[in-house]
């Protein structure tokens, strides 16, 4: 029966078009993400994506290894030499682009979130640069004084920062950074949830819309296995399409830029320098993808549940769009921010929000927001399956 449920979905031209659209978006998104990685040649021209990857890898891997105090000092010296040798700032960049990541560590790591200075590394002393890892904790403590952190939040942050192991191991990881730290992944997840919502919109409502409900429910398995096949079809479509889209996106970007650096800590990307989660790029990828999957399951099952109740496909199409976009805008209203950060759409944006160190206190203990959201929404998604089944099988046909 599952085969026929899937056939019902796939046989619609509109659904075939929707899947094709998602495929095009994934491919386009992966090329755009890769294109953001650039390498500047001596003559000032640049290449990007797959053409930049090899050169950048070669340049950056010259710095591969543990970034100790000595290495940090060397970064400052090399940066200075590049500026001395070049006539212009652009010319200097061409020379130091192999150490540009480490230069950014110093720029963002020494200044803190609010006082970022792109030219800091050009003026800093080698001894000051060597204190980068100590500065990370002191900047956090400065933040505690300025912003309204609760006791529990401070405890969590200090504990996590304490668990941070310095020195960091550095290497080329531009492929992973392009996958995880670009704006394309959260956008792709929103598009994917809307398109999958479109695909599953008719699973529970098509019998009512087509007038096939009487035959369905009067059949032997119409109130048990037939309904179960619908739940399975929703689960299968969400799972297969979501993971296919995400694996294709990841595979294409890594295919173009290289998969090296999976085991590096995410803090090696300066954007994540202050992130409290001590995880590798591969672990962040798993967390981001699994969180996105939970959001897809939860939002789409809810949409399907409403569509089964209302016997209309409209809900299943509109709810994913509303739930994945509306909280993002409402969250900009200051007094709603804290509440909106608990909506499931946050799971679609783990790659960007992970570095914001959002902490919520439950039972006197602080927890990272994703430590709460992932299990709660996973549980909700799992609970919605029997609710869908039980509600639909009792349908009355007046």
């Amino acid at each position: 029966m599952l085969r026929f449920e899937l056939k019902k979905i796939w046989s619609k031209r509109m659904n075939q078009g929707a899947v094709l659209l998602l495929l095009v978006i994934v491919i386009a998104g992966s090329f755009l993400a890769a294109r953001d990685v650039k390498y500047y040649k001596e003559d000032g021209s640049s290449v990007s994506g797959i053409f930049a990857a090899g050169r950048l890898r070669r340049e950056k891997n010259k710095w591969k290894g543990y970034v100790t105090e000595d290495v940090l000092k060397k970064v400052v010296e090399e940066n200075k030499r590049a500026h001395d040798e070049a006539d212009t700032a652009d010319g200097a960049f061409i020379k130091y682009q192999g150490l540009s990541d480490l230069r950014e560590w110093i720029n963002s790591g020494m200044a803190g979130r609010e006082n970022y200075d792109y030219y800091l590394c050009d003026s800093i002393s080698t001894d000051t640069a060597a204190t980068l890892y100590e500065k990370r904790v002191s900047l956090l403590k400065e933040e505690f004084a300025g912003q309204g952190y609760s006791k529990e939040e401070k405890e969590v942050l200090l504990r996590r920062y304490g668990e941070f192991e310095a020195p960091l191991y550095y290497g080329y990881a531009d492929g992973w950074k392009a996958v995880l730290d670009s704006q394309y992944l959260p956008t792709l997840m929103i598009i994917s949830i809307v398109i999958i919502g479109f695909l599953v919109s008719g699973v529970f409502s098509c019998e009512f819309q087509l007038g096939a409900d009487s035959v369905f429910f009067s059949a032997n398995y119409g109130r048990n296995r037939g309904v179960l096949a619908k739940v399975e079809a929703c689960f299968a479509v969400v799972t297969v399409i979501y993971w296919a889209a995400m694996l294709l996106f990841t595979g294409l970007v890594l295919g173009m830029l290289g998969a090296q650096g999976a085991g590096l800590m995410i803090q090696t990307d300066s954007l994540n320098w202050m992130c409290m989660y001590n995880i590798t790029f591969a672990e962040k990828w798993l967390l981001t993808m699994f969180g996105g999957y939970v959001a897809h399951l939860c939002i789409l099952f809810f949409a399907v549940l409403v569509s089964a109740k209302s016997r209309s496909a409209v809900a299943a199409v509109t709810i994913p769009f509303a739930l994945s976009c509306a909280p993002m805008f409402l969250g900009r209203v200051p007094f709603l921010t804290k509440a909106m950060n608990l909506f499931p759409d946050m799971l679609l944006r783990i790659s960007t929000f992970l570095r914001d160190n959002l902490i919520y206190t439950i039972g006197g203990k602080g927890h990272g927001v994703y430590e709460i959201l992932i299990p709660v929404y996973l549980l909700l998604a799992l609970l919605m399956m029997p609710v869908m089944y039980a509600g639909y099988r009792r349908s009355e046909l007046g």
Partner: protein
Amino acid sequence: MELRINNLTKEFGGFTAVDHLNLTMENGVYGLLGVNGAGKTTFMKMLCTLLTPTEGEIRCNGREIREMDGEYRKILGYLPQDFGFYPEFSVQDYLLYIAALKGLRPVVAKRRARELIEKTGLRKAAKKKMRALSGGMKRRAGIAQAMLNNPKILVLDEPTAGLDPNERIRFRNLISELAEERLVLLSTHIVSDVEYIANQILLMKGGRIVLEGEASELIDSMEEGVWSVFARKNEVSAFMKKYKVSNLKTEHDGVELRIIAGKRPARDAVLVDANLEDVFLYYFGEKAGEENAAV
């Protein structure tokens, strides 16, 4: 096979669609006649477990059908009035899907689908998408799906509605052929269909069975006679106002009327044999006249 309906009632808000209905049916073809809103479809939906009765019960060989659950639906075939289908499925795929829903093993499902495609004359259309079928073909696919599980109870709600005369005859014959060794309940307001194929006729009105029996018993139950009257055209409206007129036939020199009346309606009126259409009009009055326009 015995279906016993005890005190069956279905209310929607304040409206009683089926009103304390009592009936016993055994193998054979039952024709359910009634005007629109008589409660036929609601009754059939309860028979098919699609609606829960407000009161009363339906027992199949002594067991309550809702308690039997899948066991009851396993022996049930249903062709609803508004037969919906999956437009993108071919006839064959549609039948295989419904067969799976009915719990047929894939090998049996394929064999049954093939047999029924043959029997319903859909062989050439087997690979066609359902949306490309004509109205008659869709109804044939409908009867095929109802027969997939070789049901002991077959419920057909308005199976010939919208079919052209040829298709209707073909369909009627098909139902007669399929009716052996099972209980068939056929709802319609096309009286001639019932007259041809039903052994027992049930007249439903206001949610109740007001009369049941064979066609001849129903005809005999009429307390008025059926008269054939030849009238001038300007007399027709007077007859229409005064009597129940079951048929009008315009000739070049006047109109031949078929009138139901307790006594001779005109001096030259001739007493003729009553038929089921007359019974329908007799019991359902003016409303039946409107419905029976389709006959």
